[in-house]
């Protein structure tokens, strides 16, 4: 399946990109996507414990399943206001 990954703030800068597509085997979970992203962008490893993850704009746990066309967002600690 193909998913879209959105990266923000430190995650965007660490990976050097704001948006990318990712090909994953059927049955992949959020944690599989994160592992693939860390493999492609080692700078993300240091951020991992700080990131929240959203799938289709909903905060999600690492063991949540992914589906074709999902939008996965890597969300560093927020600092709006």
């Amino acid at each position: 399946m193909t998913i879209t990954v959105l990266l923000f703030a430190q995650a965007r800068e660490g990976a050097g990109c704001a948006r990318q597509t990712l090909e994953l085997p059927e049955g992949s979970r959020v944690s599989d996507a994160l592992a693939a992203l860390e493999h492609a962008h080692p700078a993300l490893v240091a951020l991992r414990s700080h990131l929240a993850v959203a799938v289709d704009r909903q905060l999600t746990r690492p063991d949540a399943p992914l589906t074709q066309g999902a939008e996965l967002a890597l969300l560093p600690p927020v600092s709006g206001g």
Partner: protein
Amino acid sequence: MAELTRDPIAVDRLLAATARPDCGAVALFLGTTRDHHDGRAVSALAYEAYEPMALEALAALERQAVERFGIATCRIVHRLGAVPLSEASVAVFVAAAHRGPAFDACRWAMDELKRSVPIWKKESYASGGDGWVEGTRLE
């Protein structure tokens, strides 16, 4: 109606839109960009957001503020992109029949906004360099 904008926040227009003839109280909070943070001189600030999710989160805060505090309206606007020093990066407008709930709701919405909305602030320092402001993990 929650709003994200790259232009200066139109406080006067939004205040006029917030006031209602059945309400005696309007509370407004403006978060303005500061020229220092943790002892360092700040020369510029910029915000980025996961825009659709941030808009949904702000709209949810507006609804929750109305339900929790029995106010008439809550309206939140956050600015994105570069924000010059002293200008408002965020505005929370509340109208209510009485001032107690207006203050409570305005304060609650700002507290929640800081920890539940996917927006990020980057500071540029007068001495050179820049950095993301330490934030709160979304939960």
